[in-house]
């Protein structure tokens, strides 16, 4: 019985830790996907500019307020435009961007198929 109690206690403690870590992981994930507008090319996570440091605080606050990843992105997109996200979203401006690799893969595959497999037959 005693063993069971300890077991539950340990389970509880480790869970608490992972909960906090999850929040931190999410914060890191979000700030890595945000572009620093002052030092362009760097992410907010990597940058130490005034703007980046403020934005880190804002992301932390929003997460503490219970906002999810998408809500934070939407908030920042409204303020700064879609450029602030490193990962471009899938919309009518980016169809070509997202679908081009797939298209090239299919076309390339078709060329290989024609040249080698049909020829060998």
């Amino acid at each position, binding site marked *: 019985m005693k063993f069971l109690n300890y077991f539950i206690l340990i389970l509880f403690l480790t869970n608490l830790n992972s909960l906090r870590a999850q929040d931190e992981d999410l914060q890191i994930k979000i700030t890595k996907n945000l572009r620093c507008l002052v030092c362009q090319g760097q992410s907010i996570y990597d940058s130490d500019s005034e703007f980046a440091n403020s934005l880190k605080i804002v992301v932390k606050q929003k997460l503490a307020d219970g906002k999810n990843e998408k809500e934070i992105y939407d908030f920042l997109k409204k303020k700064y*435009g879609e450029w602030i996200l490193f990962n471009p979203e899938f919309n009518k401006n980016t169809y070509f961007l997202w679908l081009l690799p797939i298209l090239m893969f299919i076309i390339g595959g078709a060329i290989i198929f024609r040249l080698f497999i049909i020829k060998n037959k």
Partner: protein
Amino acid sequence: MKFKILPFFLIIFFCIIFYIFYKGLLNSNIYVPKNNTEIDIPIFNAKVFNSNNELNSEKIFKDDKFYIMNIWSSWCVPCKSEHPFLMGLSNQENIEIIGLNYKDNKKNAKKFLKELGNPYKIILLDKHGTISIDWGAYGVPESFLIYNKKIIKKITGPIDKDLLIEIKKITK
């Protein structure tokens, strides 16, 4: 006939790719956020400079009056160059200039105002820079011209002679 289609298609394909990259090469790679105007001003609470009171933004910005929200700091060099223009605008009756002191040291800020004059009706404090993000700003100085609780013009960087003329034209 079948074999001639493929090279032809490839050449056109690479021409298109070349054109796209060549065009992209000439584009400026410094991005400036779009000047989103006609958007509502954010609602926020901020501490007032020289006092311990907190003020809600809804109590500051009233209808039917022009406001300039100016983000400034004593450590920011371009702020010094735009300060005389703000002093000039502070004499205009239908404009109120609100300052947002960005990540600054109180002592230095006081010294800055003492040396160059104080054009601000109210100065709010933004110690962590989070209020500036609410406004969509990413540096100092930045100014927002506000009318009827809407941002009608956003100025990134210091106000200069041309911008001063433009502001005067809008607020006439």
